[in-house]
């Protein structure tokens, strides 16, 4: 590990010299995910999502280019023009103020628009108004929801056919749903507004999460393609090797995917204030991080747990274990057993194995 740093670590993971027992310790990951999911459900039930104006309906005003972003000015103005309103006032970027009130009629809207411009000392054209019926956001998200359900079903079918194992596709879908649940929980916890952009963000999470699982599972498929033709390692061990081998890729990919999102989050969150970019980037940031982690710690172990129930694989696992118990009883060197258990790449039959395949000198 010392020499070559990250690259050396990648090498060790690939050859199986270094191996993290990710699949073997699946109970731990399952309980962690269960814990997070339960917490997310609790947060969603008790705190709920902070629905934006697109879902509640109402009028929204954005004043841009103001010198003084004092919220009291807006509160006073609203109280004057439309008494009895409870406005939500938020700062947008460095020089903008957003005022949200429940629905106003046209006359009041114009009046408030002019009054806000006057109060903040900007041209009326710098005050934008926005009116949204309460059903608008709902109808859009209902369609998005149906689209998503269709997509998940289609993706599940595609994966089942591609991997020729429905259990794999179930594992991917379940893991993906857990990702979205946890991301939604985090979003609710922070309490940012849910806008149509947030919905788009969550759809991206869905896509990314499934994409990442597809890449990891493809490695699992590659490693287990001739599983039953050998008796050295079990499905679980092969899958674990696959996870270890794709670890470097997963880390690189998530960093590369997170960096631009972090860029938006930084620009959107600190320079722009509330707005499309901020909403979308937070859900994405959490979602991509969770999605990449769960491909490794949830999806693959879940896949192993499910597929070990498959008769063919169960029989194979039993055979390998019996054989190994036999070997251990015969007093075979520990290193050979360890090699088998780590599913080392050197032990794939039919591959050239270099000088390591030669008998070693005993001491």
């Amino acid at each position, binding site marked *: 590990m010392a020499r070559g740093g990250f690259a050396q670590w990648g090498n060790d993971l690939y050859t199986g010299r270094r191996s993290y027992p990710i699949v073997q310790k699946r109970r731990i990951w399952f309980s962690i995910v269960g814990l997070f999911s339960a917490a997310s459900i609790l947060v969603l039930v008790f705190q709920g999502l902070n629905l934006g104006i697109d879902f509640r309906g109402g009028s929204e005003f954005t004043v841009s280019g103001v010198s003084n972003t004092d919220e009291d000015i807006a509160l006073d103005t609203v109280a004057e023009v439309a008494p009895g309103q409870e406005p939500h006032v938020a700062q947008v970027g460095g020089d903008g103020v957003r005022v949200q009130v429940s629905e106003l009629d046209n006359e009041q809207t114009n009046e408030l628009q002019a009054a806000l411009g006057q109060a903040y000392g900007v041209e009326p054209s710098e005050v934008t108004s926005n009116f949204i019926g309460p059903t608008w956001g709902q109808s859009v998200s209902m369609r998005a929801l149906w689209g998503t359900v269709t997509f998940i079903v289609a993706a599940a079918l595609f994966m089942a056919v591609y991997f020729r194992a429905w259990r794999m596709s179930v594992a991917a879908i379940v893991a993906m749903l857990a990702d979205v649940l946890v991301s939604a929980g985090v979003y609710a916890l922070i309490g940012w507004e849910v806008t149509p952009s947030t*919905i788009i963000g969550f*759809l991206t999470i869905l896509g990314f999460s499934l994409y990442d699982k597809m890449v990891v599972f493809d490695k699992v498929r590659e490693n287990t393609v001739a599983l039953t033709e050998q008796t050295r390692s079990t499905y679980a061990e092969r899958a674990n090797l696959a996870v270890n081998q794709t670890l470097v890729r997963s880390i690189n990919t998530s960093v590369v995917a997170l960096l631009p999102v972090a860029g938006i989050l930084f620009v959107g969150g600190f320079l722009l204030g509330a707005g499309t970019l901020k909403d979308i980037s937070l859900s994405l940031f959490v979602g991509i991080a969770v999605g990449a982690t769960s491909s490794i710690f949830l999806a693959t172990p879940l896949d192993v747990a499910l597929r070990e129930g498959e008769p063919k694989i169960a029989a194979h696992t039993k055979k390998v274990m019996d054989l190994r118990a036999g070997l251990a009883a015969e007093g075979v060197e520990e290193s050979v057993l360890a090699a088998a258990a780590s599913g080392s790449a050197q032990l794939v039959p039919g591959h050239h194995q270099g000088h390591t395949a030669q008998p070693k000198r005993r001491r």
Partner: protein
Amino acid sequence: MLLTILTILLPFGALLAGWQLDGKSSENPDGASLAPGLALDLQGGTQIILEAVTSDGSEVTPEAMEEAIGVIRQRVDANGVTEAEIASQGETQIVVEIPGEVDDETVALISQAAQMKFRPVLTIGSPLPTVQPSASPSGDAADDAAADSDAAADEPTKKEIAEQEKAIESATDPSDLAQITPSVQEAYDALDCTDPKSREGGGGDNPNLLLVTCDQAGSAKYILGPVEVDGTDLTSATSGLIPTSSGGVSNTWGVSLDFNSEGTTKFRETTERLTPLEPPRNQFAIVLDGLIVSAPSSNQPITNGQASISGSFTRDTAATLANQLSFGSLPLTFEVQGENTISATLGSEQLQRGLFAGLIGLALVVVYSMFQYRTLGLLTVMSLIVAGAMTYVVIALLSWGMGYRLSLPGIAGLIVAIGFTADSFIVYFERIRDELRDGRTLRLAVQRGWLRARRTIYAAKAVNLLSAVILYFMTVGGVRGFAFTLGLTTIIDVMVVIWFTHPVMELLAKVPFFRDGHKWSGLSPDRLDVAPRYRGAGRFSGPKDEVVDAPVADAPDRERELVSAQSVSSAPRIAEDGRRMTIAERRAAERKAAADAAQNEEKH
């Protein structure tokens, strides 16, 4: 190879050609431009969301929606707004996007209900005004077209309306020319149908009064009698070849109308009265949204409620008329669901910040891939640049070809796509490294790594594309724009990997810098711990040993062993000339080392 380059260059050429031949200008707003079109949230403007509602709860058909959009487009265009985007969203919603600011009157005009009426024709004339328009015309009939033209925004006075009502009451039937009061005649004279402002339509014409209006094309103007049959009494309108009286099918295209029982009665009365009259009074006008879509003459009384309109129709014009009539038969009204104004400064600010965010993200990705893949990271960056350029060009092309507009969620989608796209390269490079670790030469590693990476990339991108296509067809609004961007970048990503990254990688595999695994190439054997290949005579080598001057000396090749394997012997395995020792040589060296150690111990 040539084909590949052509395919990549084709969109660029198309865009340049479009830019040269069909340039975007104020007269040609649909022309090509090198910059992609921007959606309202980046450009500034007003977005109005209308929901089509039927008062009797009947279903709104897609054809009716198309007609509704046509009606709204006519209203907006006639209002002098160019570049308005009008699109249906979902089954019953229409989104109108108008750049710049819009006053309340425009919104009210746009959202008026569109109604269809059948009225008898009293007079037809040339579309030009017969008197000077400045001669203070007063729109007498409760007529929007006349009222909106020129300065005659003043409503008809009560006196004039009373006068009209009286004239109509005293008239023998709705076709009586005596109904035309002087004020109506004045409005008719002043009306200029060549002026688009007169053709903006809009509902709200009083069914009991006369109507002075134009036809949709502005080729003639009419005075029409009070409403005889309501459009809602029409049950269906279909286009087809007109059946002859003998039951056969003629060669002429036409539109068949079906009335309900109430409509049948009224229509029979109308046609019985109109048929014997002289032209143009034997015509009845079908008025949709205040404008005349068709004014056929009545040849015979229709008693069974099944009329057909024939004339110089082609198959398409007949279908258009049938669609307009079916739309008019719906009691359709528009409800304003949302109105959204974005100031131009806010829009451009968001665009700037969004692009800034994208640049920061890209720079971070460049730094990271250089860190991870050294010089090879440059290939990632180049591929990203190629993908970015292609995406830009395709978006510019699409905004020319099919009116695609880039919105803020779309830009966010593009920024996120950097991650998805870069992943293809990461998967590919990691597979190559895996192959190198197995001890293959770079050329072979690229070949085999590509085959394995390709399968993974295809499978994973297929899922992405699947989600994009399904979301695009099943959703509306911003989600749809997002799905479009996702699908677009996925396709471009795959194209770039196949046609750019892989061929370049194959070329690089022949360059000594990469082939021999230079320290900074990202493929150097000491970073990858390449499995030694047996070269005979007890010598092993990585893919390069002979060429690069022995970096191995200071970094001895470690024995490949497992986590729990036995302890490593401390004896050197490398001869002084950098060659790997044979077993015999190594044993000798070990013995020597042991002897030295023994001597040292003796000394102490």
